[in-house]
C-alpha cells in the first residue's frame, strides 16, 4: 500500500487512494483466481469420477441389454420350437404352414392333432402382445389345448376348458384369440368354433368361391371373461379339393406405405386368384402378395398361414369293405413301432364293449398279424408307404380292415403251416392265425386289403 508520506496535496491523495484500491482489487482477483483454480481442479476430479461412473453404467447397461437380447432370442427359438416340425399326415387331407416372424417374440401358434377318436383337430391361436409374457402364455396354451383336445372332439367344449384353465393362470391383461376345427375324415365335415380369431376361409376349387367361417365366440384367457365367455360349435360340409386357409391377423394387418391395411378382402382375392395351385405354392403366393402390398413397410406383427387341403377318401372307404354309414374309425400307420398304439386303442374299445379277455387277446394277435403283413410284406418295410386301418367296434361285432400300398398277393396260395414240411417256414403262419381267430375274413381281389370280423360271443 502507498502512504501519503510526502504530503503532496489532495490531488495526489486521490490518486494514491485509487492506486491502493486497484492494488486491493488485484489482490482480491489473485485470491479469487487461486480459488477458481482450486475449484477447477475439484471440478475436473468430479468430472473424472462422474465420467468413470457413466462409463461403468453404460457398460453394465450394455451387458444387461445384451443378456436381454439373448433371452429374447432364446424365447423366440423356444416359441418357434413349439410349432410342429412336421404336420401329421391324415387319410383325407394334406396340410402346410408358414410362420413369418416380425423380428421379435410373438404369440402365434398352430397345431394339427389326430385325436384318440381319429378326428383331425386343426388349431390356430394368437396371444395378445409380444415378448416373454406372450411366449410363456403361448407355451402354456399349447399344452392346455393339447390336453383338452385329447379329451374332447367339440371345439366349443375345448375352448371352455382352456378358457377356464388360462383365466386361472393369466393374471395380466393378456388373452388369446383362437380357431379350432375338428375334421371327421369319414363324413368330410368340420366342426369348428371361433374364439375372437380372424375367420378362416374355405376355397371351393370347383366353384372357385370362398366362404368365411365366421361365427360368434369370446376371447380366451382374460380373467374378466371367466364366467361370461361362451363358445359355440358350428359345422361345415367339406368337399374333396377344398382348401381351408387359417391365418393370424398379422397377415391382414400388414400396412402399405400410405398406412392402408392388407385386409381380409385382398386376402380373399389372393386366395381366389391362386386357389388352384398346390397348397405350398398357394401360401407362397399369398405371402408375396402381402409383401408386395406393403412395399417394404416393416411388419408390425408376426403372422401364420396354415392351409389344409381335403382329399378324396371315397375310393379308400369303398376298398375297405366299410360304408360311410358304418362310420368306421380310421388310422394311418407306417412302421412296426406303430402297432402297439393301434392295439392299445382298439383293445380298449373291445374292453369297453364288454368283450372277454380271451377274445381281446385273440384280436390282439389278429391286429399284429394284419399290420405286420401289411407293413413288412405289403409295403416291403418302406416307411414312406402308409397302411390305412378302418375299424368299428360295436357290442355285436368287432371289424378291422387293413389296406397297404403294395402290389397285393394271393392269399389262397399260402402254404399250410401245419404241414411238417412247412414248420420252419415263416410264410403263411400269420394268415393261418387270422383265419383261426376271426369269425369272418375277406380279402380284396388285388390282395392288398384284408377285412376281419369277430362277433361278440363268437369262436
Amino acid at each position, binding site marked *: 500500500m502507498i502512504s501519503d508520506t510526502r504530503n503532496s496535496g489532495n490531488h495526489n491523495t486521490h490518486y494514491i487512494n485509487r492506486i491502493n484500491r486497484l492494488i486491493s482489487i488485484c489482490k482480491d482477483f489473485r485470491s479469487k483466481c487461486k480459488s477458481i483454480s482450486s475449484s477447477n481442479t475439484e471440478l475436473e476430479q468430479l468430472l473424472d469420477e462422474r465420467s468413470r461412473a457413466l462409463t461403468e453404467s453404460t457398460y453394465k447397461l450394455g451387458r444387461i441389454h445384451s443378456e436381454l437380447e439373448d433371452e429374447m432370442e432364446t424365447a423366440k427359438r423356444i416359441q418357434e420350437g413349439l410349432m410342429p416340425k412336421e404336420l401329421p399326415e391324415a387319410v383325407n387331407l394334406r396340410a402346410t404352414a408358414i410362420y413369418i416372424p416380425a423380428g421379435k417374440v410373438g404369440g402365434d401358434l398352430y397345431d394339427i392333432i389326430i385325436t384318440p377318436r381319429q378326428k383331425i383337430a386343426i388349431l390356430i391361436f394368437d396371444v395378445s402382445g409380444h415378448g416373454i409374457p406372450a411366449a410363456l402364455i403361448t407355451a402354456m396354451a399349447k399344452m392346455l389345448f393339447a390336453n383338452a383336445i385329447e379329451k374332447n372332439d367339440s371345439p366349443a367344449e375345448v375352448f371352455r376348458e382352456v378358457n377356464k384353465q388360462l383365466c386361472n393362470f393369466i393374471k395380466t391383461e393378456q388373452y388369446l384369440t383362437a380357431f379350432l376345427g375338428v375334421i371327421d375324415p369319414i363324413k368330410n365335415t368340420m366342426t369348428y368354433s371361433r374364439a375372437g380369431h380372424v375367420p378362416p376361409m374355405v376355397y371351393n376349387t370347383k366353384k372357385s368361391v370362398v366362404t368365411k367361417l365366421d361365427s360368434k365366440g369370446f376371447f380366451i384367457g382374460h380373467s374378466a371373461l371367466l364366467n361370461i365367455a361362451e363358445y359355440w360349435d358350428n359345422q361345415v360340409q367339406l368337399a374333396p379339393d377344398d382348401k381351408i386357409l387359417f391365418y393370424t391377423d398379422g397377415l391382414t394387418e400388414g400396412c402399405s406405405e400410405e398406412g392402408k391395411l392388407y385386409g381380409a378382402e385382398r386376402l380373399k382375392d389372393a386366395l381366389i386368384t391362386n386357389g388352384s395351385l398346390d397348397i405350398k405354392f398357394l401360401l407362397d403366393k399369398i405371402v408375396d402378395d402381402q409383401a408386395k402390398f406393403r412395399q417394404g413397410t416393416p411388419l408390425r406383427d408376426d403372422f401364420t398361414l396354415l392351409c389344409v387341403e381335403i382329399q378324396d377318401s371315397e375310393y379308400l372307404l369303398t376298398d375297405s369293405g366299410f360304408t360311410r354309414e358304418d362310420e368306421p374309425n380310421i388310422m394311418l400307420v407306417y412302421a412296426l413301432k406303430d402297432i402297439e398304439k393301434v392295439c392299445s386303442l382298439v383293445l380298449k374299445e373291445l374292453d369297453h364293449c364288454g368283450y372277454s379277455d380271451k377274445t381281446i387277446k385273440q384280436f390282439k394277435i389278429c391286429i399284429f398279424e394284419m399290420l405286420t403283413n401289411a407293413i413288412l410284406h405289403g409295403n416291403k418295410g418302406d416307411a414312406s408307404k402308409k397302411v390305412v386301418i378302418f375299424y368299428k367296434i360295436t357290442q355285436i361285432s368287432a371289424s378291422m380292415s387293413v389296406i397297404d400300398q403294395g402290389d397285393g398277393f394271393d392269399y389262397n396260395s399260402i402254404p399250410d403251416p401245419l404241414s411238417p414240411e412247412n414248420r420252419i417256414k415263416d410264410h403263411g403262419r400269420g394268415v*393261418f392265425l387270422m383265419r383261426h381267430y376271426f369269425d369272418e375274413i375277406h380279402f380284396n381281389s388285388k390282395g392288398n386289403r384284408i377285412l376281419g370280423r369277430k362277433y361278440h360271443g363268437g369262436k
Partner: protein
Amino acid sequence: MEITSNTTEDTGYITLIGQLWQKEDLCAIDEAVENLIQNNITKIVLDLDRLGFINSSGLGLLARTHSRITELGHKFILLNPHSSVLEVIEVSGFDLFMTIAKSADELKIILAKK
C-alpha cells in the same frame, strides 16, 4: 422285452419276459441259443412263464430253434407258457412236436430222461 440266459451243468435256460414279436428280440434269442450250443449245452429250456404275447414271427423263431437244436440231437423244452401263449402254440400245432413242461416238476422229469 427282457431276455436273460444262464446255465446249470448241461442245461441252459433262456428266460423271456414281455412280448415276443420284434425282430431285434428274435435276433437276441437266436444269439443266446447259439451261445449255449457253442458252450456244449445239450439241454435248452425256454422259460415262457412271464411271456405275455407271441405272434407268428415269435412262433417262427420257436420252430427254427426247435429244428436247430433237435437236429444236433439236443433237447429243447418250452417251460410253463402263459395260457394265452400256450393257446397260440397249440393252435399252431407246435404242441404236437415240441416238448412243453407245464411246471418245474414236469421239467425235472423231462430233463432227467435220457
